[in-house]
């Protein structure tokens, strides 16, 4: 372990632990959470690790408080994270909205299990994908990433912190029970300063600082508490000064910027992994653990001479609209396996815009797809004329 307390080297660990280590490596020094299967291990590891690296762990009275606390910590200038699963994620929605409105960098991890309601607490689901996008009231955009392995849990947690600091909003890691609980090798490189992004800040005590005045970019510099700025921020619609302004005009200015900072930077944010995509006619669009199952099926299909490929959506939101749109003109069909009854498939279908068939392979949850089911869908599309 280097002096800074971050782990480096090769480890065999589960996704939850890898996520916690990713956070530590990303510079996260505050964690507030509430236990819930299958995300609890993240909190547990943070409770052990944070005091070692000079950070603070606190278990709050519920998920609402946890979410509020990480927003507070972020405004004290500390990178902060919480983790949960479906029921807790539902409870966090209101304050995720506050995070968006105050433009507060932080990371929220959802290790998805099967719902609705308490559902199957210890078993996998990928059913909160649309909730990640739409779960809080109001008009906004969000960033959500979806790791497929403990290694990606580590890597994408760092990425999530970077994106949250860069674009000033809560970034969601939409993992799932299998990735969270499965153990594999995780390689943790030494993290250099230039690998990490820190929010832009006004000069300490700079006069005339306005909390929401941007300087050309869509993201305003962020003051933190205790630096003499004496700033005000509010969840109400506000102007550049951070003052409430109860007009439709102020609303439009604010919301337009909040939406545009994501939409116009989509290319910077969106990550996809191509798997056997060369010349693919049938593209399996998948994410999380399902991307790996899909790759298994694609490999089999290729062996059978079917030109299949897999597009892993590493970034779920903003949606890879352009990529799907381009592919739609080139491929015959999209196969979309999800451990839900249809969520991302709606986006794929919309972006395909009738130019390629879109076939959902739904799963109600509790386990991953049998590869054969995905293979069958690939074959069905292949047989289409």
């Amino acid at each position, binding site marked *: 372990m280097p002096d800074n307390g971050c782990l480096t080297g090769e480890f065999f660990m589960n996704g939850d632990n890898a996520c916690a280590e990713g956070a530590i490596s990303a510079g996260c020094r505050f964690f507030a959470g509430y236990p819930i*299967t299958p995300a609890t291990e993240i909190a547990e590891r943070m409770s052990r690790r944070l005091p070692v690296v000079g950070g603070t762990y606190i278990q709050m009275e519920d998920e609402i408080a946890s979410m509020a606390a990480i927003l507070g910590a972020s405004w004290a200038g500390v990178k902060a994270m919480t983790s949960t699963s479906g029921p807790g994620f539902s409870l966090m929605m209101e304050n995720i909205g506050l995070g968006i409105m105050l433009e507060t960098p932080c990371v929220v991890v959802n290790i998805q299990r099967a719902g609705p309601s308490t559902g199957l607490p210890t078993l996998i689901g990928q059913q909160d994908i649309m909730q990640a996008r739409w779960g809080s009231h109001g008009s906004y955009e969000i960033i959500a990433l979806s790791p497929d392995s403990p290694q990606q849990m580590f890597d994408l947690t760092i990425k999530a912190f970077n994106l949250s600091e860069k674009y000033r909003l809560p970034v969601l890691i939409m993992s799932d029970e299998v990735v969270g*609980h499965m153990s594999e090798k995780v390689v943790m490189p030494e993290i250099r300063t230039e690998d990490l992004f820190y929010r832009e800040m006004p000069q300490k005590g700079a006069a005339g600082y306005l909390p929401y005045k941007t300087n050309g970019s869509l993201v305003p510099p962020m003051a933190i508490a205790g630096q003499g700025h004496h700033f005000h921020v509010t969840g109400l619609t506000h102007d550049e000064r951070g003052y409430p302004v109860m007009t439709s005009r102020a609303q439009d200015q604010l919301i337009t910027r909040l939406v545009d900072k994501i939409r116009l930077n989509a290319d910077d944010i969106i990550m996809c992994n191509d798997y056997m995509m060369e010349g693919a006619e049938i593209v399996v669009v998948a994410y999380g653990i399902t991307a790996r199952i899909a790759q298994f099926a694609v490999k089999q299909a290729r062996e059978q001479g079917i030109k299949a490929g897999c597009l892993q959506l590493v970034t779920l939101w903003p949606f890879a609209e352009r990529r799907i749109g381009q592919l739609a003109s080139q491929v015959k069909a999209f196969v979309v396996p999800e451990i839900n009854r249809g969520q991302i498939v709606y986006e794929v279908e919309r972006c395909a815009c009738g130019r390629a068939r879109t076939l959902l392979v739904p799963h109600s949850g509790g386990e*991953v797809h049998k590869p054969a089911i995905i293979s069958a869908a690939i074959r069905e599309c292949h047989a289409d004329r």
Partner: protein
Amino acid sequence: MSKTEIRLAGFGGQGIVLLGNIIGKAASIYNKQYAALTQSYGPESRGGSCRAEVIISGAPIEYPYISNPQIQVILSQEAYNEFGANAPEGTLLLVDAELVKMDKPPAAKTFTIPASRIAQEMGRSVVANIIMLGFFSAHSDVVSHEALEKSVVDFIPAGSEAFNMKAFETGYNYSKKKHGPA
């Protein structure tokens, strides 16, 4: 590319998930293979039955679940009834003879060791799983003996290295004694 699936099954508190971790780490970190460990979770894994499953492969593992384990380590009657009894021919079955009664010889190639009794005799019943691991090492080459040794040390509490190594070797030697060199 070679791929081995291993199931470890028994009840909560036997250190089954720990075994999975030891094997997984040995394979992936020390033997530079690919390894994926999945396990049973929830209240079930505390009182009742408990399971850990490891895939070890020379190539990246896409599908992380086992389907036809080549090796099964069985540490309770319930696990035997559910899995061990039906293990097909050509697979390897390692059983704690103290905890499991087998009505008829299973189809699989089966070896038994009274790991929990030996552990008790050694004075620390918690090391039954490490004894079983030694036994496993004697019967399978999927992970190297040295890798397992190193991995054991990584996972056990500091100060208990010697005792655990003794347990590991005891399990290994039990096999050698009983069955002769593999």
